[in-house]
């Protein structure tokens, strides 16, 4: 039976790996990044400086990193997973004590050539650690309570550190990424139902705590939630961002106002137009057609990654790919929902499009892991 011949199922080696990469993903990611270059060029009033050119360089570097990471056997990445997790925690602790303060939060380590955000690394490291744990754990045991303790602790520790910075957005992304890995690993749906109920209860508690002695969130976070619920209460304060962002989006209409023609962008009505709110510029200048196309690109990335995970019989690779796809999904979904006024402004950039070095590099490295899992999947 020649089709059962193991030689057919041999893993690619050397340059052959290039052929076995998930090219669809690479094409999609490049298309998204290219959209980003275009928008950065636009928000700089038609200039490659200061953002677009640097972003392109970083994407080039990121692509190289993805290749390198992808070429390295997934076995290696599984073996370094605990190390990555511990390293991530150490870096988070490091910024807690020595980090630079930017935008009111301690987030960065200045490495000279790059502003490193350990919370970015942590998202991948946590997914790696959880994938490793469930790969090791007998699938029969995943839903037993005692085997849930470790993954929950693994998740809560970095979450707590990130919340301390304070960075609510990243903390939510960490929890969401971890939750998806556990879901994929087969943890009973009852737990998720309970967790959601508990989450609703926690939110209620958090809101109730406002103004009391045991107030849980910072004042500015309450303010954001409040203005999210009714932006008109503070049109020139915290609500300004949401209102102007919605105006930009809506004024784009079906076909947009044309490249470099968005008045909201040109006249600086948009806040942080090159980072968190860059989607509004795209939506203003290219309209509904432009924004729905970008959304489709993002959705396809997730679909291709999940498809790769489902076909992968290596449990570590499958879980890792799922976790990274989920993190990526939450990234863009939260950002878009935020600028469209569906959820409060939490400070999550649009992956690959928003200007930002470490986020881009970490994301490309993560997709390197996805490629590695794809290339080295059992045949």
């Amino acid at each position, binding site marked *: 039976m020649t089709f059962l011949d193991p030689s057919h199922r041999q893993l690619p080696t050397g340059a052959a790996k290039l052929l076995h990469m998930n090219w669809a993903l690479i094409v999609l990611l490049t298309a998204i990044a290219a959209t980003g270059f275009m928008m950065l060029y636009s928000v700089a009033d038609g200039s490659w400086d200061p953002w677009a050119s640097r972003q392109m360089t970083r994407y080039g570097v990121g692509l190289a990193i993805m290749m390198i990471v992808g070429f390295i056997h997934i076995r290696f990445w599984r073996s370094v997973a605990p190390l990555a997790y511990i390293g991530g925690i150490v870096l988070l602790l490091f910024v807690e004590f020595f980090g630079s303060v930017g935008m009111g939060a301690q987030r960065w380590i200045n490495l000279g050539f790059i502003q490193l955000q350990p919370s970015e690394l942590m998202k991948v490291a946590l997914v790696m650690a959880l994938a490793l744990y469930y790969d090791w754990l007998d699938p029969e045991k995943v839903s037993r309570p005692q085997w849930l303790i470790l993954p929950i602790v693994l998740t809560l520790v970095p979450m707590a550190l990130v919340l301390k910075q304070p960075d609510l957005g990243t903390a939510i992304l960490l929890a969401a990424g971890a939750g998806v890995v556990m879901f994929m690993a087969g943890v009973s749906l009852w737990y998720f139902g309970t967790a959601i109920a508990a989450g609703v209860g926690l939110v209620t508690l958090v809101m109730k705590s406002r103004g009391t002695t045991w107030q849980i969130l910072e004042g500015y976070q309450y303010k954001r939630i409040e203005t999210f619920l009714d932006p008109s209460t503070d049109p020139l304060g915290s609500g300004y961002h949401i209102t102007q962002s919605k105006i930009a989006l809506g*004024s784009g209409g*079906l076909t947009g106002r044309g490249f470099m023609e968005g008045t909201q962008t040109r006249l600086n009505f948009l806040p942080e137009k090159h980072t968190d709110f860059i989607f509004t510029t795209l*939506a203003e200048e290219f309209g509904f057609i432009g924004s729905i196309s970008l959304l489709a690109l*993002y*959705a396809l990335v997730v*679909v291709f990654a999940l498809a790769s995970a489902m076909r992968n019989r*290596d449990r570590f690779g499958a879980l890792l790919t799922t976790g990274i796809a989920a993190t990526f999904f939450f990234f863009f979904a939260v950002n878009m929902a935020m600028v*469209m006024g569906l959820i409060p402004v939490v400070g999550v950039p649009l992956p690959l499009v928003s200007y930002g070095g470490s986020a881009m590099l970490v994301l490309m490295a993560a997709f390197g892991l996805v490629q590695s899992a794809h290339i080295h999947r059992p045949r």
Partner: protein
Amino acid sequence: MMRKAPKSAQALVTRRGMLLMGGAVLAVGGLGARMRQLQVKEAATYRLLAEENRMNLRLIAPARGLVLDRNGRALAENRQNYRVVIVREQAGDVEVALDKLARLIRLTPERREKALKEINQRSAFVPVTVIEHLTWEEIARVAANAPALPGVLPEVGLTRHYPQMEATAHMVGYVGPVSDSDLEKQETPDPLLQIPDFQIGKTGVEVRLESDLRGAAGASQIEVNALGRVMRELNRREGTPGRDLALTLDADLQTYALKRMEGESASTVALDVRTGEILAAASAPSFDPNAFVLGIGFDDWNYLRDHPYRPLSNKAVSGAYPPGSTFKMVVAMAAMEAGMLSADETVWCPGHYQLGNRRFHCWRRGGHGHTNLRDSLKNSCDVYYYDVARRVGVDAISAMANKLGIGVKHDLPVPAITPGLTPTRAWKQRTYDEAWLVGDTLNSGIGQGFMLASPLQLALMTARIATGRAITPHLVRAVDGRPVEMGDDPELGVRPVALRLVRDGMYAVVNDRRGTGYRSRIADPDVKMAGKTGTSQVRIITPEERARGVFKNKDLPWNRRDHALFVCYAPYDAPRYAIATIVEHGGGGSVAAAPIARDVMMHALYGPTPPLQAYPPGEREEIERQRKEAPPPPRPEPVADPAPGPAARDRA
């Protein structure tokens, strides 16, 4: 070797993966639906909001309408206002720039401090006025040094200027910056008022005819960014300038009248009796309205406010004085209209009038003996009018006063017009809750007591007596070149004989050798003047004072002296002008007021240099000497296409 997941686990992964994908697709669908809602369904709304965001209307101030006199001479005009503005972002170091500027023009430390403060408060790109009202030389120096002064810009705007200075200050008024109370007064304030440095009428015609003078704003539609910086102009619409107003005033006569009253607290109003046009309405002392436009200093303001002669008060229309003996014509006419008085009827004047145990004095202690109507006016006999007033009653007197324009608020476009006061029995009961007394009537009979009139009302009374028509006063002659309708006033409705007799009495006052105004007559055989003197008390003379004989005016402090009044019209047989003059606390009307009114009348009749023959022989030498010493300035250059002035017409 890699551990492969068991089949069941693999199936679970597939199942859960499908669930995840389904969830992701749902979420993406939700995001897409939201995009559709914002960008397709509500796009029009948001497009509009975006346009509102970026568009801004910048108002362009229209040029304020001019105020001209009847001959086209400017009373209020717009002058170029040279100012220096500074733009922080272009200036670099603002302090250094101001230091450089201070070397070119006078920049007081206070001005500098104020400018610095404002510069630091405003955005870097907003021009801030450092100093304004510069001379042409100063602005030229700044302009010439422009290369050394980046961000310091010479600019030119418009500001109000009053070339007649003090002369028309009260009637024309002045403009000033918009105050908060100006804004509060209006329900929907004109957006123009928000323009920085915009000037708005504060007093006089400037405030009352603000709506004519202001004009309509132009607008420049501009695109602004989120900080308010102007990116470009999208559209521009020029405004409509304000309407030019030609007043009835004769700047020349007005200036002369004010000058003639120099040193007194006085007022003179001159009317054209045929049309009711106000040719002059001067209040002395006056003030320079330009000082208010430039921003009057605290000390100057306090001086004007606290001066006992009240320079800020428009006495011509706002001052209410007891008319005194100038009121006697009203009493006489009231009595004749009521059929209670005839020309030949005489009253015996022993120097006082006994009412019960109270004695009402005539100004002449020895009395006038038998007095008829003509003599009562000529000699200004008080007892005669006590008697007549008592017969006719106060209500009839006040009704006649109203008919002649006293106690009526005349509609002129200047603020604070007094209606004066014509008391009635009902009025006193209402106001003081006291019954009207016969003594009150006697006082009213000689224009004292409650009776009050403004110089304008007295001039109007004289004009109505002179013409027998219900003349209405006018201050505006034309708006934007279109004449205002006037004249054709109805008959007064007073029997001609009454008018004739009163006029005859007024003629005697000035032209009879023993008349109280004889010294202030016009000696021109062709032009005769009729008038009436008045001296109104501002205090009650106690019997003790009378006994001591100490009530000579010059012995009293200024503010307790009598007011001096004179009303007149001329020419007697074809009346043209009516004039009323009041000199506050000036003493006797024949001495203090009549000469002023006569000279203003002469100026109106003959122009600035009346012929010597028109003066009484005794005065001619003095006049000649004065003219040699200081020849009166030649009449100013006639302006293009002047309407003939009253004086010019009369000489023709």
